[in-house]
């Protein structure tokens, strides 16, 4: 990697902000009345679940080992459904949040068990659990939304402070801050990057790779469980298909946010910015009365374009390096010259 990580993430952030300005500008021109504080609040509200799930997705990708979690959407649906079914089975209402979070954590740890202990390829293991979890959410409910979310939960799910939805303030912001601090300022966070950069070396220096990976899949599940809880408090019912397409969207957010698919590179800020961009785009399309099915295609196209442009900039870097190396001595700048002296 020729660019330093910090420079790379600055490039990513600038790109995302520019894209965001294009989207907002386009919306402002095509439908000026859509630009309002209500729209901002709704974008934030719609970002909550995707942001939580994308953070989990980012963590497992970051740690390398072909890490990927296709089951996140299934966990969101199943933890919401399990919470509601638990309520019906007689679990006291104040325990509902704990049930959702615990369900998410356990489902995630099961992924971790398959991947870190049994060494099944993450792609296939989480493909299997995507089937199992999302299928269970549908099968247990017969496909029907589960109503009866306790009334005290709704003000939290739907309320806002200074125009910012409460779930964003109370879950998304703290969780992203914590993840950012852990990743950049603790040994454990450096382990994750180290595992993603070179797993062999990470093992050789004594990092407990398997345990760390297991915990990361557990965390991804926990975050998805939190997403399920937010969906309950926001929508007022447990929908068995609430997590549909989240695997595609969270992967896109992670890639768009500058996370390297092979691990070892990526920042939480980039992922959060990518989530906001994706949801803004979706909201803009909604405001312009574009059918929701177009979004899937646009998200897919964005994913492919981001990956293609990643390759192109790498090739561009290569070209630039070769060009610079071929220049006469006096023209050379940067590390090449320094290393010669």
């Amino acid at each position, binding site marked *: 990697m020729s660019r330093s990580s910090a420079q790379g993430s600055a490039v990513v952030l600038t790109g995302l902000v520019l894209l965001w300005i294009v989207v907002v500008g386009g919306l402002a021109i095509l439908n000026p009345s859509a630009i309002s504080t209500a729209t901002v609040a709704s974008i934030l509200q719609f970002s909550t679940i995707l942001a939580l799930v994308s953070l989990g997705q980012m963590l497992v990708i970051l740690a390398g080992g072909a890490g990927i979690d296709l089951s996140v959407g299934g966990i969101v649906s199943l933890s919401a459904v399990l919470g509601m079914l638990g309520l019906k089975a007689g679990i006291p209402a104040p325990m509902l949040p704990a049930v959702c979070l615990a369900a998410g954590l356990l489902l995630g740890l099961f992924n971790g068990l398959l991947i870190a202990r049994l060494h099944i390829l993450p792609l296939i293991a989480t493909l*299997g659990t995507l089937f199992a979890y999302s*299928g269970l959410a549908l099968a247990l409910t017969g496909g029907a939304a589960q109503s009866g979310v306790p009334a005290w939960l709704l003000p939290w799910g739907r309320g806002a402070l200074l125009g910012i939805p409460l779930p964003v303030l109370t879950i998304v912001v703290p969780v992203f801050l914590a993840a950012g601090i852990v990743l950049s300022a603790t040994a454990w966070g450096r382990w994750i990057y180290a595992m993603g950069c070179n797993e062999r070396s990470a093992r050789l220096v004594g990092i407990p790779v398997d345990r760390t990976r297991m915990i990361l899949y557990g965390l991804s599940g926990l975050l998805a469980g939190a997403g399920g809880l937010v969906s309950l408090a926001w929508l007022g019912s447990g929908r068995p298909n609430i997590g549909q397409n989240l695997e595609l969207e969270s992967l896109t957010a992670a890639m768009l946010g500058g996370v390297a*698919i092979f691990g070892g590179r990526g920042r939480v800020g980039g992922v959060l910015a990518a989530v906001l961009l994706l949801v803004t785009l979706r909201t803009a399309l909604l405001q312009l009365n574009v059918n929701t099915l*177009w979004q899937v295609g646009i998200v897919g*196209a964005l*994913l492919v374009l981001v990956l293609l442009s990643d390759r192109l900039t790498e090739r561009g870097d290569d070209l630039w390096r070769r060009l610079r190396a071929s220049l006469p001595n006096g023209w050379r700048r940067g590390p090449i010259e320094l290393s010669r002296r």
Partner: protein
Amino acid sequence: MGLLAPTRRELILLAAGAASILVFSAVSPYFGTVDNAAAILRNSVELLLIGLGITLLLAMGSIDVSVGVAMGLVAIVVGKCLEGGLDPALAALAGPLAGAALGLLTGAVVILGSIPAIVGTLGLFGIYRTAIFAALGGQWLSGLPTGLTELLSARVMGIPVTFHVIAAVYLAVWVALRHTPYGPHLLAIGNSAEKAKLSGIRVSAVQFATFVVSGALAGLAATFYVATYRNVEMTTGGSLALDAIAAVVLGGTSVLGGTCSLLGTVLGVLVLRILQNGLLLSGVPSLWQTVVTGGLLVGVLAIEAIAARRPRLLAAGAGR
């Protein structure tokens, strides 16, 4: 390792298939009938064709999750051809051709862009789905002419044409793998693309060929789909690629590349369809089908992984 000699996994699947047939026959009086057997085989056609393509892709160390919706897209092409009054035989050919073109496009994105296949094709999945929506314009394609249906259900030597076509495809893929340089080259790339390149294999060419073949097989599946159902809806093919990957992995082809089992894929597809059909006839709601697919996939892989960790447990039975 022989490509056709039965492996342990194939024997396990054979046993699992036989056992579930016995159990379901005992549970449901409707299961063990000739009509139902025909229905199971009929339902396996698309999954098998797409599964064969996925087998080749996995053996190469690649994957394509967009191939199911690609089939949906091609089904629209075939449907429009029929609606336009094209000769059924030509419409049947339009399927594989359009499929091959889509395969070429998928291959171009993954290979020329050197994007990891899983993310690249996940992106294409979204694009193709929207393309289906755009092509249908929010309406189903339904009540298509019956010409294609008659063509493919006609009997030659007492056996439906569909069966002949599938057998020919299977044989062609088997011959290509076993008796042409394509097979060893494919597996070499699956083991290590780098080393394959160094030993003079034209890696990109083989990769492109495999994506095109997989696309053409999906296109052929679309032809059969249209012939059977005579309609195309928005969700056509939506979950087919993931089902196929599950069936292929069940059949013993590793996602890591370098190995493949065509017979295993056939057995994996049949076991999956037998289980789904049998559970349905035993009164289990159809919503449980995805749970069964996922549970089977996770269960088989987990058992195998545990067995591999404790070799002594199965050493006596495995014989290797």
